[in-house]
């Protein structure tokens, strides 16, 4: 077994081993402090292992690990955020008596999330997907408030739904494959020729869209992110949603292309990105606004992948991963920043607010930030038609949303007494912040095929600046309008769904009544007789 393979395996297994270690009460008590180290093997793997490297573990593990370019990009960014957020959590939750439990959920989610970027076979992909999905529940309900439990319940229902869609999709993918656990690559290669192609793709998109939070399956995000503790929100919004992205990257046939489904994905993405902005602007809590921003950004990612699928362009996966890693780092830093802001007052507040503004506007495409890089890198693929226009508008929308966010955090932090955040929280935040600024620069040439110098051209700068200005102006204008904040409740349409609850309850009550009747002796007896006649008749006369 090569060192590279060992490293890949360690990236997956190390967090799991730590989680298993938590079975020991003594280790568990100190588990919070290992969170920072858990993702380090993954980080090392992302940096050190050459791309395109496979590691295959023979029976009985039946595990295939693959590190390709999109996987490496996502893995690196995610591992960094996990590590930093872990350090943040270790500092912010020292007094929490339930912290050991939190650490266990954390390690499990982490193992699942990071493993997803690595794993190359169908069964283990599903396994890790499930692990990441379900363990995140523990992070969401950690605060044990009523809101957290409600968010947790809705999250689990949707996660299970996603699991179901995904399971059937994977089964349809692998059903005709001779190997019980085929590599993802080969089933995806077979997909275009499969008779169940369209159904499979539809289910895959449904399943992963739920995880990504595409409209109308986004409802769990704005509920779960504010409810979770700050470091957990950071990874939920930064990494866990990327499970859907990596899923689409891995399972859609970008080589062969599927124009119709590409178009559908594009449509879904555009709707989502607009919807996220519009609803986000009506929100009044910072974390909720960030959650809607994530929804909107995931819409943009969907558009990218949709274009790739439509035009049969495998490069789209690299670009999408690039965009995603930008979002991972920036969104993670923003969430952590909310925690920092809450602990900051007086002199330092201005500096922190400034950094937050840079981060926030980066999402809109502030020149020289990762946002601008991501937008520029993806521009050529989108072309110059209506799609590019729509994306520009979306960037404007993002900026508007972020301005709204900044206004909120400034207001929230205004009254803070003079204090400075603990270094254990401040340092990780700075690391993520710095990474969000640096990493995209270093990756840019590899991903876009252009030089870094091209980024500094005035026209390039202008290309990203004007939508921002547009957005900012619009937002400043909108902010003047008499607007009822909180008009749309968090989780928007889930409230509509809850209006249907009496209907569901009524149906359930009906079923209860039917059951009572069926369980009456004469009715069951009649059922027995009827079944015997039915079966006997069928056997006698039909066969």
């Amino acid at each position, binding site marked *: 077994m090569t060192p590279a393979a060992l490293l890949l395996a360690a990236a997956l297994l190390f967090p799991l081993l730590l989680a298993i270690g938590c079975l020991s009460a003594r280790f568990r008590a100190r588990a919070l402090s290992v969170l920072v180290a858990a993702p380090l093997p993954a980080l090392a793997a992302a940096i050190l292992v050459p791309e395109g490297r496979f590691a295959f573990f023979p029976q009985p593990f039946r595990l295939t690990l693959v590190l390709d370019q999109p996987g490496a990009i996502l893995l690196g960014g995610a591992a960094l955020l996990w590590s930093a957020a872990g350090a943040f959590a270790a500092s912010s939750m020292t007094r929490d008596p339930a912290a050991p439990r939190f650490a266990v959920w954390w390690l499990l989610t982490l193992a699942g999330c990071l493993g997803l970027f690595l794993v190359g076979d169908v069964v283990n992909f599903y396994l890790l997907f499930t692990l990441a999905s379900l363990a995140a529940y523990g992070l969401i309900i950690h605060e044990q408030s009523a809101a957290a439990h409600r968010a947790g319940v809705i999250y689990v229902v949707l996660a299970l739904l996603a699991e179901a869609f995904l399971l059937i999709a994977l089964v349809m993918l692998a059903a005709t494959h001779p190997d019980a656990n085929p590599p993802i690559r080969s089933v995806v290669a077979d997909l275009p020729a499969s008779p169940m192609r369209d159904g499979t793709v539809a289910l895959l998109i449904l399943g992963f869209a739920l995880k990504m939070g595409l409209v109308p399956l986004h409802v769990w995000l704005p509920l779960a992110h504010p409810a979770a503790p700050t470091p957990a929100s950071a990874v939920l919004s930064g990494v866990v949603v990327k499970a859907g992205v990596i899923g689409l990257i891995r399972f859609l046939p970008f080589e062969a292309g599927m124009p119709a489904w590409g178009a559908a994905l594009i449509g879904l993405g555009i709707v989502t990105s607009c919807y996220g902005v519009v609803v986000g602007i009506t929100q009044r809590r910072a974390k909720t606004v960030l959650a809607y921003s994530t929804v909107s950004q995931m819409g943009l990612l969907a558009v990218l992948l949709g274009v790739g699928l439509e035009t049969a362009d495998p490069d789209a996966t690299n670009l999408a991963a690039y965009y995603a890693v930008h979002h991972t780092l920036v969104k993670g830093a923003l969430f952590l920043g909310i925690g920092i802001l809450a602990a900051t007052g007086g002199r330092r507040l201005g500096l922190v607010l400034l950094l937050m503004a840079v981060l926030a506007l980066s999402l809109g495409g502030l020149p020289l930030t990762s946002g601008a890089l991501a937008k520029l890198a993806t521009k050529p693929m989108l072309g110059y038609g209506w799609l590019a226009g729509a994306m520009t508008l979306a960037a404007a929308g993002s900026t508007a949303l972020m301005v709204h966010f900044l206004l909120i955090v400034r207001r929230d932090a205004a009254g803070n007494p003079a204090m400075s955040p603990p270094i254990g929280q401040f340092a990780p935040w700075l690391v993520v912040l710095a990474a969000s600024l640096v990493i995209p620069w270093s990756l840019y040439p590899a991903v876009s095929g252009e030089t870094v110098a091209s980024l500094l051209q005035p026209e390039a700068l202008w290309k990203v600046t004007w939508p921002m200005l547009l957005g900012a102006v619009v937002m400043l204008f909108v902010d003047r309008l008499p607007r009822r904040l909180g008009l749309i409740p968090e989780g928007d349409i889930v409230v509509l769904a809850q209006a249907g609850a009496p209907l569901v309850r009524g149906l359930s009550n009906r079923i209860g009544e039917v059951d009572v009747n069926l369980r009456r002796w004469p009715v069951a007896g*009649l059922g027995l*007789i009827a079944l015997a006649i039915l079966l006997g*008749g069928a056997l*006698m006369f039909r066969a």
Partner: protein
Amino acid sequence: MTLLLDLALVAWLLALAVHVVVQRGERSAIIAFLAFGLLLGLAWVRLAAPDVALTEIAIGGGGTGILLLRAEAVLRGRGKEEEPMTRAGKLAVAVGCAAISAGLGLAVLSFASPAPTLAPAAAEALGATGLGNPVTAVLLAYRALDTLLEKIVVLLALIGVWSLAPDGVWDGAPEVKPAIVPGPLTYLARILPPFGIVIGVYMFWVGADAPGGTFQAGTVLAAMWLLVMMAGLKPPPDTSRPLLVLALTGGPALFLAIAFLGSIFAEGFLAYPEGLAKPLIVAIEAALTLSVAAALAMLVAGPARKAPAR
């Protein structure tokens, strides 16, 4: 002529069965069921199955009858009727039952011809067992495993019945004596048992070669014991009494022991060594008869109601 008799018997059986079902009074229905059991015995005679006829009359009619009558006496007045059915529902059930009967009748009439039978095989193998009654041979040789398990079934039913006793008196004695014992009953209980025991032993003894056998004999013995207990001549024993336990487990235990010996000294589990088959079978039957008698009597007697005498 015989066909006419058979037809009359069948008609009577059906009429009684319907009577049992539609009769309002619980006791009348049970008495009709008793009569039904006796007639059924006749039907078995007509079907050339004297062994079954004896069993049916003894256990199916007699044993079940006394069980039901005793239950009826206890439940009278307090049995709460539950889950009645509408007329339409009853009609639907009636139609369904008729359909099942019709289908069954069709199946019975469509049996393969010539009838498949194991009679020749059973007759051929009879020599190896030394028995004269093929039914006994089936029960204790060819299909002895069924019989063994069925003994356990009876024992389990008994344990189940006993488990319904209240906790404190669990290993005590059941109560079968009525509050006032009528004189004639006592008289009968003094006179009849000697005859009954003779008859029972006789039934068991001939069972190897002629109609009769463990169940029939066991039932007769059980009836005698019950009679004695009901008349109050001898109280029912504590359920934990060693002698009773010995009687109950003795039969199955001997059966098992011989079965295991068969796997050492003969061709396998439940096989009998050449030449010893008949004596072994008779020994098993003897022990089983006692076990069956004890089990049936205690099944009718019901769970313990008195604290054990310590």
